[in-house]
């Protein structure tokens, strides 16, 4: 199959600006995009740089942006992605490029993986043999752990795009692995850690990550699980992220009291009732909203019918959480 490869090229050694180079490649129908790149490097242009290791979707080394979508180059056949005879290959986005298709994962991924401290500390009492745990408890841990650290979920993350310090779905999927491992002895500590600013609570849960994971590991859902587990443990804030705690408590209390959300109260309580500076910051928004009839009066909204039933549900659910 004849294909035109448009490949991102950047070589800081020769001082030129990033550009695309075009190569004609003729490979069998079964060829992958990685086969195409290797063919270009071996036969046409030995200066082309890219990473590739296992060649079978096990190691995550070859994450690339192929025809505008994050993919593993080794696991994608040319025939599946080619558009009008063209395959465009670029480095993943929002990351420093070192040379051509080689990019720097250090700050983007590896530091964040380390930041969630994803190692297991054997839970006490440490048994003599293996831990006796149900297969169901480990099945999802195993699946989360099958993550190949390609970084594509982070590449697609709407928050990382604007805030490179956000820990991101890849590291939080790694955290999931530890948080839900029944053998781990640092469950609460890790939840506190990932609840810090820049952690799980900075996620917008927009589900972008799910669409970007080439393994279908559903990172957003795992992140939700981590967050819900933090709520269960009552350490949703950590001591260093009190705003999260206040926001959650206020939302919860509002629904508990009236069955629905008291938005005015939520805004105020999230800042903290004694947080003068924070409350003052709200004022311009409130002042703009009042004349438009858009600022619901805090603490005055009415109970919905059914509020009592909802309160009972919440009370019961909270009891079973403990």
């Amino acid at each position, binding site marked *: 199959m004849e294909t035109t490869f448009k490949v991102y090229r950047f070589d800081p050694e020769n001082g030129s600006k990033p550009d695309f180079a075009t190569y004609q490649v003729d490979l069998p129908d079964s060829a992958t995009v990685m086969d195409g790149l290797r063919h270009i490097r071996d036969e046409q242009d030995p*200066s082309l740089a890219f*990473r590739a290791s*296992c060649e079978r979707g096990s190691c995550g080394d070859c994450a690339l942006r192929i025809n505008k979508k994050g993919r593993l180059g080794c*696991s994608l056949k040319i025939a599946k992605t080619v558009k009008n005879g063209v395959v465009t290959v670029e480095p993943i986005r929002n990351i420093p490029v070192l040379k051509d298709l080689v990019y720097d994962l250090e700050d983007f991924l590896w530091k964040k993986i380390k930041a969630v401290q994803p*190692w297991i500390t054997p839970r006490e009492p440490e048994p003599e043999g293996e831990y006796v745990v*149900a297969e169901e408890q480990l099945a999802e841990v195993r699946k989360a752990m099958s993550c190949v650290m390609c970084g594509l979920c982070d590449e697609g993350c709407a928050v990382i795009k604007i805030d490179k310090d956000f820990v991101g779905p890849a590291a939080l999927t790694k955290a999931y692995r530890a948080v839900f*491992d029944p053998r781990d002895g640092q469950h609460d500590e890790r939840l506190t850690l990932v609840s810090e600013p820049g952690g799980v609570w900075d996620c917008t849960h927009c589900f972008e990550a799910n669409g970007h994971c080439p*393994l279908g590991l559903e990172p957003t859902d795992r992140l939700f699980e981590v967050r819900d587990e933090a709520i269960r443990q009552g350490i949703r804030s950590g001591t260093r992220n009190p705003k999260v705690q206040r926001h959650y408590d206020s939302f919860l209390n509002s629904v508990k009291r009236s069955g629905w959300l008291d938005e005015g109260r939520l805004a105020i309580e999230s800042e903290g009732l004694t947080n003068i500076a924070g409350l003052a910051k709200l004022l311009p928004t409130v002042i703009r909203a009042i004349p438009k009839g858009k600022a619901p009066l805090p603490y005055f909204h009415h109970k919905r019918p059914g509020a009592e039933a909802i309160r009972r549900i919440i009370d019961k659910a909270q009891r079973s959480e403990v």
Partner: protein
Amino acid sequence: MLKYDVLIVGGGVAGLRAALAAKQAGVQVALLSKTHPLRSHSATSSDGLNAAFGKDDSWQQHAQDTVRAGAGLCDHAAVEEMCRTASDDIIQLDHIGVPFNRNTEGKLDRWALGGHTSPRTAFSADMTGHAVLNTLYEQCIREEIPSHEEWLATSLVVEDGICRGVLALELGTGKLDAFSASAVVLATGGAGRVYTPSTASQSCCGDGMSLAYRAGLGLRDMEMVQYHPLGFCERAAFASEGALGEGAVLCNPDGQPILQADDPPLRDALCRSLASAEDGATLDFRSIGKERIGARFLYLERAANDMAGISLDSAPLPVMPRMHRVLGGIQTDTNGATAVSGLFAAGECASPGVHGANALAGNALTASVVFGRRAGSAAAAHVSSIDPRTIADSALQDTRRTLEVIFSRPTAGDTVVTIQRALANTMAEHVGLVRDEARLQEAARCVADLQTRYTQVGLRHHGKMYNHELLTFYELGALLDVAGAIVTAAQERQESRGVHHRSDFPATNDAEWQHHSLVTCGPDGPSLATSPVVNAGQSA
């Protein structure tokens, strides 16, 4: 110029395990690896870890099975060491988080793999290597073990028979540097790319075997090249042998089962029968059901889909034997120690003597864990016995000059890629599953010829950053060393034993050949010696 007590070269399972063991022993340890550790070939290991658990099995039985598979070439001390301690290693891996599959009692589930008399393979779906690699990596970052990634060790520094460290090339920058260490552990992995097709990752080029070989050490049992029966037809991927234990059926193109008995045969026999079946074979998972496939073949389900366009629950997967690994390697004792003081080796690059002439499924990863740990501990223990010495900067001069020479060679004719391709094709064609004198002679001639061409090959690309052609130049040098050793040993062994099958000498000849082959680097190329099998003939 960096200096450590112990330097581990290679970031796969054996390397990371060695690093943790050394760290635990209280020495200053660092990793140096060609790729990021998580990109290591260990991530593809899919069979599991072997150890005897429970009253129906014993480590002695595991040892017996191992020795039987090894067809008379196992060193019993090494086999016993591995089989006796593997259960502790597996338990420890469980405690630090390898998500081994559980049985209904919540204890380790086990696969029954070919050649094992009991089900004794603990597994984490068909991604055990990946799970162990990631778990060990987690512990390494916990221990804050320094890691030099994308560095290629280009030579060992050995002075007066004592290893002082390595010289290495930083792939991202082209910088050369010396890493001084009181002990070096080579854990650079296998050499699968010496064949094509193979199941090897891009990185499996026998780097460490070549480093040791050039430092004068012997490569043992190199003719023992194992094929994997369940390789994909067009990709390096392969199905875990656990598939057969789980009930997947190996069929001929008419859909008739190839294997009759419940007890799957050893890999070599299976590979030879598959290779002689002209129309290929398929592996049929359909009777296993989607749910169980999803739970136990996490990797294969996805890979079959992505790379073979097959949904395992609805169509059989075409498979073929692919060269899998060289069972031999750098000769070591059970502590991973080599004949060079301060130099240790573990994992696929090493030959502590557990595999002999054929390896049981799962024993390779098990050996990486057990002997990785032992090599790390032994290297750490070695530190106090040595007067540390820093590698002189002048040591880099030779390497710098070599680079200058390489870059100044003319680039007409051969490229490193054409030579590497010719080498891998030669090996597959002439030193494959079935060998004979004529083919081996042809192979020897080809390898020697390629070796000569290699000494003249020039590089088209002269950049410093991520110069893949330069990396290939080094890797090709290693692959040629490994190929030379394989061919030499295969030629010499005029019998059939384990995975080494010669059509001109189909019988096993214990009287003359029950010993290891040992290839060293002579002035005129590979030179063969033999070494006795330890405790040969005694039952474990």
